[in-house]
């Protein structure tokens, strides 16, 4: 299967790979998996006091589309407020990367990961 140029770019030069301190009060960690293919994705956000995402990191073990989806999402969430980040839909990710139908679940995984990271942050802050 041919990957789009954008997927190849993110795969070869992934943005924001790595980790943030998961015990930091201002860091939210989302950990999600795609059982059908054995992928695992961790997405972390660091949030300022006024609710803006100042940093994001990811680590994904999976196919090129899963890596590209999570890499793209870390770029997109930086500088956004939590609510703005929650508005990112898997459709946006899939469209931007031109994912084929069989790889749509990779973008779903990335959306799930943002939601999980934000939910973890909110729980830590007692915002839920």
């Amino acid at each position, binding site marked *: 299967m041919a990957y789009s140029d954008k997927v190849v770019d993110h795969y070869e030069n992934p943005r924001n790979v790595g980790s943030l301190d998961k015990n930091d009060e201002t860091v939210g960690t989302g*950990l999600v*998996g*795609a*059982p*059908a*293919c*054995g992928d695992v994705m*961790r997405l972390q956000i660091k949030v300022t006091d006024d609710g803006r995402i100042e940093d994001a990191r990811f*680590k994904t*073990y999976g196919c090129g589309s899963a890596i590209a989806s999570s890499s793209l999402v870390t770029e997109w969430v930086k500088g956004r407020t939590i609510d703005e980040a929650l508005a990112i839909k898997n459709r946006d990710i899939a469209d931007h990367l031109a994912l084929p139908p069989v790889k749509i679940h990779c973008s779903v995984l990335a959306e799930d990961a943002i939601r999980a990271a934000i939910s973890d942050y909110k729980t830590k802050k007692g915002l839920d």
Partner: protein
Amino acid sequence: MKCWRCQREYGDRDFICPECGALQGPRPDLSHFDRLEMSPSYHIDTADLADRHRRLQRQFHPDRHASRSAVERRFSLEHATALNDAFRVLKDPVKRAEYMIGLRGLDMRDESNQIKLPPMFLMEMLELREALDELSGSDTHVERGRIEHDVASRYERTLDALGAGLDGTDASIVVLAQYAAQLKYLKRILEDLHALAD
């Protein structure tokens, strides 16, 4: 079932019409277990499975049906293919388990299915992956061997639990699917470990 040639009814187990002797096509509604004339169970005797496959396969060998009509020769080939598919799935412990979960209505290959794995498991898988990434240099084969041993024994334990669950009555379909999904993760890690060793 009705014979395609003489339109008379024939028995569930017949593949040759008792009235006119015509060879019938394979029934689409049979499970892999039905096809190999076994009761559906995870714990099967694989030698017995291979014997059944060989015995049934002989009945559909092209040489035995060479003098039949084109339709019947095609049917004999379809029987042989269906038997091979059934054998290929049932002889493999993981494929057999996934197939049995499928018989209960959940398709493990469907990426949109909503199997959620425990966060603790996902964290362990990520940590294992990170540990593998850090393996480099000369004295890592001991560490790699240790990880491989741990993952392999965990794989066996999970497969045992899945098999017990499939043959028992207590485990829910969700629990079974979680075991099967965990096997996928563990297997991927084992495959990557083997690739590292090469």
